[in-house]
């Protein structure tokens, strides 16, 4: 009997693809804007669960990433980014279409251990935030301490964001990322544009028509 069901969500041929924010057009603040907001849509998002001792070697081998075991740590590498969410939960974000292949390889590497890998790509999207006032906009939106003095590059947290929730990450000196849930995305974006108004905020939507091809065409692969 198969232990886990595989499912590659991406169609074999490109079809209509819509990000949760597809209806927002580019906006420019008019004046000099000090916050720029971009959607980086259609990435593959996976939730990895397991004891860190169980996952660490396979993650290193398959992803080339050191599994962050310290709370609130985010590591970035060629394969993508891997963020600590809880002592037994991580968020892996990789390029569009890569998730299914990596999931297979991880499952194979992990063998009979107890773990879980779940594709959540359709359920969330990634926003990038940068500019001189990006931190001010974040401070209006979350009670977590996002002061750059307290929030170094390579930190990522899950917290309350306005009246929704978000994963908040600092990926370099100027640049921040928000991982927001699909159903709340419209609200979150409207909130950000409103909160950024006093500083001047530009929004750049995801590129349309991104073609996501399957890494491997496997409909129902099973593993014993």
């Amino acid at each position, binding site marked *: 009997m198969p232990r886990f069901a595989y499912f590659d969500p991406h169609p074999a041929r490109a079809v209509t693809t819509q990000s949760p924010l597809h209806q927002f057009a580019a906006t420019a603040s008019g004046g000099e804007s000090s916050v720029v907001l971009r959607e980086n849509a259609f990435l593959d998002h996976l939730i990895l669960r397991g004891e860190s001792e169980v996952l660490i070697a396979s993650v290193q081998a398959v992803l080339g990433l050191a599994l962050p075991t310290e709370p609130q740590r985010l590591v970035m590498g060629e394969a993508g980014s891997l963020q600590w969410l*809880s*002592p037994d*939960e991580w968020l892996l974000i990789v390029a569009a279409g890569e998730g299914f292949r990596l999931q297979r390889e991880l499952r194979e590497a992990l063998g009979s251990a107890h773990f879980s890998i779940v594709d959540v790509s359709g359920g969330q999207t990634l926003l990038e935030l940068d500019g001189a006032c990006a931190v001010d906009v974040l401070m209006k939106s979350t*009670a977590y301490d996002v002061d750059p003095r307290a929030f170094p590059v390579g930190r990522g947290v*899950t917290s*309350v964001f306005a009246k929704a929730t978000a994963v908040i990450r600092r990926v370099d000196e100027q640049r921040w990322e928000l991982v927001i849930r699909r159903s709340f995305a419209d609200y979150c974006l409207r909130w950000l544009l409103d909160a950024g108004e006093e500083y001047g905020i530009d929004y750049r939507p995801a590129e349309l028509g991104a073609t996501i091809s399957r890494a491997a065409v496997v409909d129902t692969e099973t593993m014993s």
Partner: protein
Amino acid sequence: MFHIYCPYCAEYREEEEFHPKGQAHIARPADPTASSDDAWGDYLFFRDNPRGVHHELWVHAVGCRKFFNITRDTRSYAILETYRMGEQPGVTAESVTLAERDSERKTSDTATMQGVPS
């Protein structure tokens, strides 16, 4: 607005990230069928409401989603400790009562010295 140290995230986080789940250390009877109606009713419905030290179960709902325990003083709302599931409290009503008696003695000495009416 509490500031709560999550023992799993290993840092203080705002109360809005947490949900309180009631009194801690209430174990489900291992064999419910052997428990009398009264005992089962106690397990389901009866909780302590102390003035002073209280052990509570909380969850870091918007965060690591882990359940953990808080020892809290219901008089001052001071959080005396937080600890992981499966662990026992280090601060109890008894230990706090002893410490308070101690510090009251000290405070009354100081007050007399400074001549400050209490």
